């Protein structure tokens, strides 16, 4: 069970803690698009909700834009236009680090970030969240596979490697699980969402037959089901699809 403060951080991503506007979900941004190095976390898709809001305010000041006068839609557009957002592994890392912190575990010290380069090893020590990606979570030293749907619990991860449509790796965080459904949250961007409507969102998987594969259940997200649901189609086309649980 995820702690209250962990759920709060997910809520904050779903509705960024701006004072002037509500219900602005954090947009998706992957630094591969701009390739910035040595930047603030919020500008490379790895920031916490608080950092993202702070960076937005600074950016608005720099660009002579009165943030207070923008409505929710315009604020989100401003975020997207200025490359402020979160990517899937950044979202999972920040949420899980909070979850583990509540259990007195330093998530970033525990997680193993595979690298052979000594210089990169040093960098991963001081900037862990920036160096964690989907493959880090997939790594055998960090997680093990959960094969039965019945064994799934909150905090587990759905990992997709080399999805066909978007040609990327993707990670989804399971936020709750009961007998008939799995709830999840993730940061994503799909082709049908246009320029501004992407970002962090919730979804659920209705379990119709727990003995079958996760792809044989009903995936619902943004009121779209299975083949209409791009998260589902992405999972379906992934070369590797696994449910994993962190070992620590």
């Amino acid at each position: 069970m995820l702690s209250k403060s962990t759920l709060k951080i997910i809520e904050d991503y779903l509705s960024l803690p701006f004072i002037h506007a509500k219900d602005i979900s954090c947009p998706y941004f992957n630094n591969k698009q701009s390739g910035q190095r040595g930047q603030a976390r919020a500008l490379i898709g790895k920031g916490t909700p608080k950092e993202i809001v702070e960076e937005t305010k600074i950016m608005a000041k720099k660009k002579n834009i009165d943030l207070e006068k923008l409505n929710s839609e315009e604020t989100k557009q401003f975020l997207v236009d200025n490359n402020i957002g979160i990517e899937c592994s950044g979202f999972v890392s920040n949420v899980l680090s909070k979850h583990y912190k509540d259990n007195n575990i330093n998530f970033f010290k525990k997680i193993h970030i595979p690298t052979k380069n000594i210089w990169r090893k040093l960098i991963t020590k001081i900037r862990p969240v920036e160096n964690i990606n989907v493959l880090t979570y997939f790594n055998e030293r960090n997680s093990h596979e959960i094969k039965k749907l019945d064994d799934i619990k909150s905090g587990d991860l759905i990992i997709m490697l080399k999805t066909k449509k978007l040609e990327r790796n993707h990670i989804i965080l399971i936020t709750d699980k009961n007998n008939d459904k799995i709830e999840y949250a993730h940061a994503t961007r799909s082709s049908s969402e246009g320029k501004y409507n992407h970002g962090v969102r919730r979804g659920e998987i209705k379990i119709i037959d727990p003995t079958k594969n996760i792809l044989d259940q009903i995936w619902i997200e943004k009121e779209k089901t299975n083949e209409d649901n791009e998260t589902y189609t992405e999972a379906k086309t992934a070369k590797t699809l696994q449910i994993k649980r962190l070992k620590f």
Partner: protein
Amino acid sequence: MNCDPFSIELLRQALLFAIFSCIGAFLWAPILIKILYKYKITRRSEFDLTLRSGERAKKVGTPIMGGLLVVITVTVVTLIFNWHREYTYVPMGAMAVAALLGAADDLLNIFGTKRRFRKFHQTLKLIKIHKKWYMRLWYILTLPWTVFRRLVGMFGSHPGKGIQVHEKLIFQFFAGAIVAWWIYFKLGIHWHSVWIPFDGQPFIGWLIIPVVIFFVMFTANAVNIADGLDGLAGGTLISSFVGLCLISWVEGRTASTLLNATIIGTLIAYTYFNIKPARFQMGDVGSLGLGALLAVNAIVINKTLLIPILGFIFYIEAFSVIIQVLAKRLLGRRIFKMAPLHHHFEIRGWSEEKIVMRFWIIQSFMVIVAIWMALY
């Protein structure tokens, strides 16, 4: 050229120098402003992002290189009335070199063409893939220079035009080295010790050379960094030079007292025209020149270690940039909302006037502290 400590005659002379240089600067300031407008030596927003926001957008079109008012007035007055081998050669020389560098930068920023530099990873790639072996060798041999350029580039602005950070540092190093060479080799053994507050003057020999170079370079850049709001650098420098002038007077150092008094007078005239809304801005010509002068004037009265206190605001501003860059690069987060520090307060909603006044007050207080320390 020294006289009795607390000499009333020296005080009279110093005040006269300040009054005379202030009136002189006031008289030709309108001419300078006219010249700067005529040749369109004004601030442009193309390569200065901060000028695109809010109140700062109004600064576009304001003449820069207003620092010439101080640099030229001080040079002329000193050359005519206060030319002294031991106490004014070095400060004027250092100021001239730094001001020339600043002037070149100011002019190139306006009239120069955009320059492009190869990125570090591009150099590494060229080392691997360039088809000519001698070019690969060249890139390997010049790799330390590329690394240096990349590292120092992190701490500077990137206007695309003008003199780049790494080039500035090299020039400043030479300016500092000339001062250090002059002090070490030309001025005799009594210059080879450094005053430590409350702890006498230990002999440090040749180590005086790196100490001088460091303080000249750092202070010049620190003043340059702080010169970002109307009246900030000018008003703060007045306090710093008042401190130096008083310390020189207390110790009976005639040439230094008169030089600092001259600078105070011209800075008063400069700041009159520079307070918001500024009629002109200092530019690198003034900030680098006066920064170097501040450091050297403290060095020639053997109060080198007082420089961070006499130039407290400048040092705080410079360190805010260093801390911000390191925090962003190493930890991926900001310590300040924006660096240098005055921009942090601007983003927090302080008015320009409030920031400038508070910084002046803090600086004045620190100068009092510096004077008190100098008496021990």
